[in-house]
């Protein structure tokens, strides 16, 4: 596979991709990721549309949840698996094609070069990401809420692209099965008191991701999940 780009495959950073009903795009996402990462682990969260088969055909290691639990639960399963398999870095990556493999590679390189345990992707550090005004406002509120509860000063929250070194990943025990895990994972990582950085990433909003993405109303659910646990 490495022959495609001529660049060496990254061996010690494993991609964890929570997967739920993305059969249309997951094949391309996995193939794209496998050009740079040897290990791509998809956690199929009870998909009903052949996502698991598509991911497997594209060369991913597929773990299966027999029932749908939610993205947070899939992420936790994937993290436990790859840490157990000896990964030095866990890269969390979305299944819908919003994230760029080049960003993931750059974040792993940053983690290595600066010896930091956690690299958070942020779509607000440069102007590549085009988000609508309402989405921007809601995301900024989410950032504010996460920062209030974690004490970190992040510029983006609910960004699925993160690089987590295994020592930090061992501190992650997500109990929020659904979308509120994005705040919870920041909280757990903060509690490890390990060094962290942010890195600019480009989140690509395609028609597909817009159609599949969480509606803004869902932020009400996230807030309720976080407050009434």
């Amino acid at each position: 596979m490495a022959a495609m780009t001529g660049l060496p495959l990254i061996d010690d950073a494993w991609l964890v991709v929570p997967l739920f009903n993305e059969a249309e795009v997951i094949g391309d996402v996995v193939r794209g990721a496998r050009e740079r990462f040897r290990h791509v682990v998809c956690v199929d969260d009870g998909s009903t549309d052949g996502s698991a088969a598509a991911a497997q055909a594209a060369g991913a290691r597929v773990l299966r949840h027999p029932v749908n639990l939610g993205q947070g639960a899939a992420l936790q399963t994937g993290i436990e698996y790859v840490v157990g398999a000896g990964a030095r870095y866990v890269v969390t990556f979305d299944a819908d094609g919003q994230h760029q493999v080049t960003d993931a590679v750059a974040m792993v390189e940053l983690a290595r070069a600066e010896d930091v345990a956690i690299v958070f992707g942020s779509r607000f550090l440069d102007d590549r990401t085009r988000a609508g005004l309402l989405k921007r406002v809601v995301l900024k509120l989410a950032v504010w809420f996460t920062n209030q509860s974690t004490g970190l000063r992040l510029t983006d929250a609910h960004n699925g692209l993160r690089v987590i070194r295994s020592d930090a990943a061992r501190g992650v025990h997500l109990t929020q099965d659904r979308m509120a895990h994005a705040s919870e994972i920041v909280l757990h990582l903060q509690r490890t008191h390990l060094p962290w950085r942010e890195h600019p990433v480009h989140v690509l909003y395609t028609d597909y991701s817009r159609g599949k993405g969480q509606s803004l109303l869902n932020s009400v659910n996230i807030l309720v999940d976080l407050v009434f646990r």
Partner: protein
Amino acid sequence: MDVMWIQVVLLVGIGVVALLLNRSTADARHQAIRRLMLLGFVLAAAVSVMVPQWLSAVANRLGVGRGADLLLYALVIAFLSYISTSHRRMNQLSAKITALTRELTLTEARLEDERRAGPGA
């Protein structure tokens, strides 16, 4: 303006429900308290069936016109606390399902990995 006693009683009741929302229902003390409250409720229900005027008298003392209104208010509080406890239990139950599912998934993955690494390797 006079504060009616029923307003105080209801607000305290709602406050207690809100507190319950953030507390565990699992431990034995809370269970005992719930059972005592249930016992009190059964006794009060029995008394108000046998002596209907009693409920109205209590209602009047609290500033509520009719006994039936008092019953309705009590029902609202009881319903809210039911929601809060069942919400807690649901969360605990789904945490168990998640743990079980994850264990199953990871075990299956481990077996697959062993099979792959085994004879073919």
